[in-house]
C-alpha cells in the first residue's frame, strides 16, 4: 500500500516537474518573435542553383546534403545493429507467420503491388519540385516488401546476402561517389554544379529510394531480408 | 658541450634503460640481466664521476624541456644533487650485487630487477631535479615503482605493507602537488636556486607562505618518515632485504629528506625561513621524530622493524640539521644524508643476510649469531656503532657537525635531543651486537643454508663489508678532498654565500 502510494507520489511529482518544464518551454515559444524567416530567404535565393525546385529537397540534398548522407548512414547503422542483435531464428517463430497468411492478403497484394511501385516512382520524381522524395518513395516500396513478407511470397529467392548488403549500402556508396566526383571539378565535396545538380540529385534519390526501401524492409526482418526467406522455407516445409 | 648538457639525463637513463630491457628479457635470461645491471650501475657511476669533476670546476649541467608553458622538466647537477646521486649510484651497485645473491632461485626476478632499476632512476632523477615539478615527477615515479618491490612476495603481510605504503606516499604526493601548484601560482616558476628563491620575490601574505611551507614539509615528510607520517616505513619492511636496504634506508626516505633540504635552502632560503619562523617548527618536528623513532625502536623485536624505526629517527637528523639553519648544522645534516645511508644499508644488508642464510628475523633469536656469521656481524657492528655516533664511524662526523651547529646557532636544546637519541640508539643497537657476539647460540638455526666456503653466499657478503668499510673510511678520511664531508662543506659554502 505504502509502496504503491510512493510510486504514485513519484509519478505525480515527476509529472509536476515535467509540467514545469513544459510551462517554461511554452513560455519560450510564446516569447519567440512572431515573424522570422530563418533561412527561407537564402534558400529561395539559391534555389535555381540547387537543382531541385522543391526547396525541401534542395535543402535536403544540396544545401544540407551532408546531413542526409549521415542520415542514410544512421539508417544503415540501424540495420547493422539489428543484424548484430539477430539470433539464429529457428522454427519456433514461424507458426506466427503461417497463421497470418491468408488468401485475401495475396489477392490484395496482386492488385496493390504495381500501384505501389508506380506511386513510389512518382514520389521520387515529384520530389524535385513538390513535396515528396526518396524517403517517402523508399517507405512505400518498403511497405510493399513488408506486404510480400507477410504474404509469404518468395521474391527474395535470388537475393544472396552479399547482394543484399550491396543493396543496403548502395545509396551511401553512390552518395559518396557523387560527392567525391564533384571534387574532380575543383569543387567542394557535394558541391554540384548548377547544371548537373538536378541529375546528381535524381541519381542519389533514385538509389536512395532503393536502399531506403531495402533498409526499412531489412529492419522489419531483423536486419536481414534473407531471414524472410527462412520463414518462407520452413513454412512451406510444414505445409507439405 | 652537448654531451655535457645531457649528462644528467644519461645518469637517469643509465638505470632506466636497463630496467626496461630487463622487463623485456623475461625471467630466464639471468646472465644477460646481471650483465645489464652491472653495466648500468657502472655507467651511472662513470657519468656521475664525470659530473662530479665538472661541477667542482663550475661546469653547468642542465637539461631543460618544457612540459607546458612556463612549466619545465629540468635536470640540473649542482653539488647537492651530486652528493645524493653519487650515494645512490654507489649503493645501487652494492645492492645489485646483494640482490643477485639474495634472490637466487626466487620467482619474479625480472620484475624485481626491472622495478629496482627504475627506482634507482627515480632517485637519481629526484637528486638531479632542477625544480619542484621535476622533483615531484620523480618522487611519484619512485612511489609507484617501489610498490611492486614492497609487495614482491605477495603474502598478505606484503600486500598490507604495500597498501599502507601507498596510502601514505600517495597522500603525501597529493599534498605536495597542492603545495607546489599553490606556490607556483603565487610566485611563478620555482627553480631550485642556491640560497633560496623566494626571499626577494615575496610580497604576499606570510601566513600563506607558512601554509605552503607546512604542506611541502608534510608532503616530503611522508617519505622522510617524519612523525606522525612515518607509519608506512615499518610496515614496508616486509619487502625483500635489498629493497629495505636501498629503498627504505636510502632512496625513498632520503628522497623525502632531500626534498626538505631543497625546500628550506633552495626554494625558501634559510633567511626567509627564519623570518617566517618555520625552521623552529621543523626542528621541533624533527626532534620529536628522532626521539619517537628511537623510543619505538627499542621495543621492536623484529630486527628489520627495529632498523626501520631507527631509520625514522636517523633520517630526521637531516631535517634537524636543515632546520637548525647554520652552516655547521647544515653540513651535518647534509653529510648525514650520505653517512646514514651507508650505515643503514650496512645494517639492512646484515639483517638480510641473517634472514636469508639462517632464517633469523627476531632480535631475541640472535644469540651467538656472530659465531656462525662473523663477517656479517662485523659489518653490522660497525654500522651500529656508527649509528650510535661512535668515532671513528660515519655517524660521529654527522653528530659532531650537528652538535656544533646546534651550539653555533644557539639552540642548545637540540643537543639534548641528540643526547637522548644517542642513548636510545645505544639501547636498541648494542644489545643486538651484544647478543650476537657475546651470547651462546640457543640451538640450531631455523633455516641454515650452507653456502660452502663462506658463511653465506659471497654476493651477500661483499656488499655489507664494502659499505661497512665505507662507513669507517668516510669518517677516517673525512678531511680528504673527496670525502662526503668536504663535499657537504662545498655545498654549504655555496648555499650560504652572500
Amino acid at each position: 500500500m505504502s509502496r504503491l502510494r510512493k510510486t504514485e507520489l513519484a509519478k505525480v511529482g515527476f509529472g509536476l516537474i515535467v509540467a514545469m518544464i513544459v510551462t517554461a518551454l511554452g513560455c519560450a515559444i510564446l516569447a519567440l518573435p512572431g515573424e522570422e524567416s530563418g533561412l527561407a530567404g537564402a534558400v529561395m535565393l539559391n534555389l535555381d542553383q540547387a537543382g531541385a525546385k522543391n526547396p525541401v529537397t534542395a535543402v535536403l540534398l544540396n544545401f544540407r546534403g551532408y546531413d542526409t548522407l549521415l542520415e542514410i548512414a544512421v539508417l544503415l547503422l540501424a540495420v547493422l545493429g539489428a543484424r548484430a542483435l539477430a539470433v539464429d531464428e529457428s522454427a519456433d517463430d514461424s507458426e506466427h507467420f503461417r497463421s497470418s497468411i491468408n488468401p485475401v492478403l495475396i489477392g490484395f497484394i496482386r492488385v496493390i503491388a504495381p500501384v505501389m511501385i508506380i506511386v513510389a516512382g512518382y514520389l521520387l520524381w515529384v520530389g524535385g519540385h513538390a513535396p515528396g522524395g526518396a524517403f517517402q518513395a523508399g517507405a512505400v516500396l518498403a511497405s510493399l516488401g513488408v506486404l510480400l513478407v507477410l504474404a509469404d511470397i518468395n521474391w527474395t529467392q535470388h537475393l544472396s546476402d552479399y547482394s543484399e548488403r550491396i543493396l543496403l549500402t548502395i545509396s551511401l556508396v553512390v552518395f559518396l561517389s557523387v560527392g567525391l566526383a564533384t571534387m574532380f571539378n575543383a569543387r567542394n565535396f557535394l558541391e554540384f554544379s548548377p547544371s548537373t545538380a538536378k541529375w546528381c540529385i535524381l541519381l542519389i534519390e533514385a538509389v536512395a529510394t532503393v536502399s531506403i526501401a531495402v533498409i526499412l524492409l531489412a529492419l522489419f526482418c531483423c536486419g536481414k531480408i534473407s531471414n524472410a526467406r527462412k520463414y518462407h522455407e520452413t513454412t512451406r516445409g510444414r505445409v507439405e | 658541450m652537448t654531451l655535457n648538457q645531457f649528462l644528467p639525463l644519461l645518469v637517469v637513463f643509465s638505470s632506466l634503460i636497463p630496467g626496461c630491457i630487463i622487463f623485456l628479457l623475461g625471467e630466464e635470461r639471468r646472465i644477460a640481466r646481471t650483465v645489464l645491471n652491472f653495466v648500468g650501475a657502472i655507467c651511472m657511476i662513470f657519468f656521475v664521476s664525470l659530473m662530479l669533476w665538472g661541477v667542482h670546476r663550475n661546469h653547468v649541467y642542465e637539461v631543460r624541456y618544457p612540459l607546458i608553458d612556463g612549466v619545465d622538466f629540468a635536470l640540473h647537477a649542482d653539488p647537492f644533487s651530486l652528493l645524493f646521486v653519487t650515494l645512490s649510484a654507489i649503493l645501487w651497485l652494492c645492492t645489485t650485487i646483494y640482490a643477485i645473491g639474495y634472490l637466487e632461485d626466487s620467482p619474479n626476478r625480472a620484475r624485481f630487477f626491472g622495478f629496482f632499476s627504475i627506482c634507482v632512476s627515480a632517485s637519481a632523477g629526484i637528486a638531479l631535479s632542477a625544480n619542484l615539478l621535476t622533483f615531484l615527477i620523480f618522487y611519484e615515479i619512485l612511489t609507484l615503482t617501489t610498490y611492486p618491490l614492497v609487495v614482491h612476495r605477495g603474502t598478505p603481510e606484503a600486500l598490507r605493507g604495500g597498501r599502507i605504503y601507498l596510502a601514505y606516499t600517495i597522500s603525501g604526493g597529493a599534498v605536495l602537488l597542492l603545495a607546489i601548484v599553490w606556490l607556483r601560482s603565487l610566485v611563478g616558476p620555482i627553480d631550485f636556486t642556491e640560497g633560496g628563491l623566494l626571499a626577494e620575490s615575496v610580497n604576499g601574505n606570510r601566513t600563506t607562505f607558512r601554509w605552503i611551507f607546512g604542506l611541502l614539509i608534510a608532503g616530503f615528510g611522508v617519505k622522510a618518515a617524519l612523525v606522525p607520517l612515518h607509519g608506512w616505513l615499518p610496515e614496508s619492511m616486509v619487502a625483500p632485504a635489498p629493497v629495505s636496504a636501498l629503498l627504505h634506508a636510502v632512496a625513498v626516505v632520503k628522497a623525502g629528506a632531500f626534498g626538505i633540504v631543497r625546500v628550506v635552502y633552495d626554494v625558501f632560503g634559510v633567511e626567509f625561513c627564519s623570518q617566517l619562523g618555520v625552521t623552529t617548527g621543523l626542528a621541533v618536528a624533527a626532534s620529536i621524530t628522532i626521539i619517537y623513532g628511537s623510543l619505538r625502536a627499542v621495543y621492536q623485536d623484529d630486527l628489520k622493524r627495529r632498523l626501520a624505526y631507527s631509520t625514522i629517527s636517523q633520517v630526521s637528523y637531516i631535517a634537524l640539521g636543515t632546520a637548525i639553519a647554520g652552516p655547521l648544522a647544515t653540513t651535518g645534516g647534509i653529510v648525514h644524508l650520505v653517512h646514514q645511508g651507508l650505515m643503514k644499508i650496512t645494517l639492512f644488508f646484515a639483517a638480510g643476510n641473517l634472514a636469508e642464510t639462517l632464517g633469523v628475523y627476531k632480535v631475541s633469536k640472535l644469540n651467538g649469531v656472530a659465531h656462525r656469521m662473523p663477517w656479517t656481524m662485523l659489518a653490522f657492528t660497525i654500522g651500529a656503532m656508527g649509528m650510535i655516533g661512535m668515532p671513528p664511524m660515519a655517524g660521529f662526523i654527522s653528530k659532531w657537525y650537528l652538535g656544533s651547529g646546534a651550539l653555533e646557532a644557539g639552540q642548545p636544546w637540540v643537543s639534548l635531543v641528540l643526547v637522548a637519541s644517542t642513548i636510545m640508539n645505544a639501547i636498541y643497537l648494542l644489545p643486538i651486537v651484544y647478543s650476537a657476539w657475546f651470547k651462546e647460540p640457543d640451538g640450531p638455526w631455523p633455516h641454515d643454508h650452507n653456502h660452502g666456503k663462506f658463511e653465506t653466499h659471497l654476493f651477500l657478503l661483499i656488499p655489507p663489508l664494502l659499505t661497512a668499510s665505507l662507513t669507517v673510511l668516510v669518517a677516517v678520511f673525512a678531511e680528504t678532498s673527496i670525502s662526503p664531508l668536504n663535499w657537504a662543506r662545498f655545498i654549504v659554502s655555496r648555499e650560504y654565500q652572500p
Partner: protein
Amino acid sequence: MTTVTLYALCGVILFGIGFYGVIICRHLLRKVMALNLMGTGVFLILIALARRTPGDRPDPVPHAMVLTGIVVAVSATALALALLRRLHRETEIGDLPHDAK
C-alpha cells in the same frame, strides 16, 4: 495566439508527455512509443515554427531537419525494437530490472 504558436505549444506538450512516458512507463515498448512521441513533439515544434515566415511559403530548412530527424527516429526505434525483441527472447520480460549491472 496564432496557429503557429498553438501547434508549437501542442508540440511542447507532446514532448512533455513523451518524456513523462519514457520515464514512467514500465513496459519497454511503451517507452519506445513515448520516445517517438517526444520526437514527434519536437518535429511538430519545428514544423510549426517554420511557418512564421512572412510569405506563405514556410521555411524549408526545418522541414529538412524534421525529415532527417524522422529518419533518425525511425532508425533508433528500429534498433530499440531489435534490442527489445532480442531481450524478450532471452528473458521473456518486457521491462528493465532496476539493477542492471
